[in-house]
């Protein structure tokens, strides 16, 4: 391989500049370098393919390259805010008591991190009753005994339309999108 001009990059180190005592022995075989370079280009190519939108061509290539990225943990999905929701939402857990429903503060539920909110939102969107019931029962058991509502818990997700930016101003209202119940034995 010809020697490159490293003059454009101050981080590059020229062979000529290396004093003899600091020079590193470099008997790298050219074949090794070509092989490593090819592997790196294949790696970049696979990442590129994996980033493209799903299509028949990508679907055909997927079985070939997927073991590499899946097993190494290099799966790519950069779709954050790709399709912003056109509605606002609120997710609430309420306790059922004889007196009615009473919201439980987020801190008592352990909803103190964005990741936990993400988990709860994803659970609501999956709309799996068994899964949500398991979660609510777990939440119930984490509450201090004195503040456990006697009848159980309800997880509710309300949504409200965000008005279009160019449309006429409209009043939007909250409506319940999902509601999950977890009854305690005493209430059944």
């Amino acid at each position, binding site marked *: 391989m010809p020697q490159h001009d490293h003059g454009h990059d101050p981080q590059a*180190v020229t062979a000529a500049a290396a004093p003899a005592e600091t020079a590193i022995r470099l008997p790298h075989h050219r074949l090794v370098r070509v092989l490593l370079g090819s592997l790196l280009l294949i790696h970049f190519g696979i990442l590129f393919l994996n980033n493209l939108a799903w299509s028949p061509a990508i679907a055909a290539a997927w079985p070939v390259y997927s073991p590499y990225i899946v097993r190494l943990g290099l799966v790519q999905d*950069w*779709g954050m805010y790709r399709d912003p929701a056109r509605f606002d939402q609120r997710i609430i857990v309420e306790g059922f008591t004889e007196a009615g429903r009473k919201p439980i503060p987020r801190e008592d539920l352990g909803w103190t991190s964005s990741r936990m909110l993400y988990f709860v939102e994803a659970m609501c969107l999956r709309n799996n009753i068994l899964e949500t019931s398991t979660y609510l029962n777990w939440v119930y058991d984490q509450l201090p005994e004195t503040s456990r509502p006697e009848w159980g818990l309800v997880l509710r997700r309300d949504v409200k339309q965000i008005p279009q930016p160019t449309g006429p101003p409209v009043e939007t209202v909250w409506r319940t999108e999902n509601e999950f119940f977890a009854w305690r034995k005493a209430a059944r």
Partner: protein
Amino acid sequence: MTLPASARRLSAAVQGIDGFLFQPRSRTPLRFMRIAFGLFLVGYFTGLHPLAMMLYGTDGLVSRGGEFPLSRIVRPQLFHLLSDHSDRVVWLVTGGGIASGLWLASGFFSRLAPCVVWLFVSSVVTVIPGNSGDLLVMSFATYLAVAGLAGHLVVGGKTPRNHLPATADGGGPGATLETATETPGLPEVPAAGKACRGLPAVLSIAGGQAVPAWSIRLFQVQLVLVYFFSGYHKLANDAWYRGTALHYIAGQTFWSRYDLSHLDDWPVITSALTTAVLLFELVAFPVLVWVRPWRIPILLAGVVFHVAIYVTMRVFTFHQIMMLYYLAFLLPEDWQAIAGLCEPLRKLLARHR
């Protein structure tokens, strides 16, 4: 005999790729990335612990509901290898993740440490619910493991042999970074030039030798792909194409740290910001970060971009890990310039000592 034009072009292309991947580069960015990622993992695993306990603890969701639908991956992970319903395993994974992060930051056994880190990161990423940021953490751990196995993270004066590319004359371009800065032919970075003078050697070059560029290129190319494809996929959506995306994002109070819905009264601003985000992701960053005069301005713009989102939106992990990827684009002179900026503070502290 002269080569035909097509052969010369091909030769130039091969030479360009070879230079891009194997040009000797400072190992300083890798050093800082190793330390920063190790410390980042301390916070990362600490933050994951409550969720891990909720899912995989002795009385967690998995043990209550059988196989919870989020726990299947084909990568090696400790919850499946050991137990997915044990407090001890949760403590092992999160505690081990924190310890491995500190180990990585310390620089001891720098070939083994990133592999151990990879195992712990692999045990939590996508096993515990997360976002794109977690995928970036996984990729970071993978690239660092590869760099570690190649000996590019070795600390101190021990540069592994045979790690720099051979040159045409058969000689080795290996040299210390000190040599790099002393090389008369190398251009000086204006911002760094004055700032570096008088700094201790440990700050300026930090005992590093050169390594082939490919390990740092893994991080750089990954970062560029993240931006480009974020923009590419956004463009397929009507809200981004028509400039209304940020109007809707600002209206999502559930994911906002502050109420941003008043921005919805200013469609001109949200529309301009939407287009700016698209242009930054699709064109500005992926192209200009490779252009020398634009590198620092575009990185600074990226920092402002991510800090602004972090301050206003409840997005976790993504922005922090993106900042770590940015380190791959910093040169030793940039670190020296940063140290130079801190010099007045250091003097002030020294005066009061």
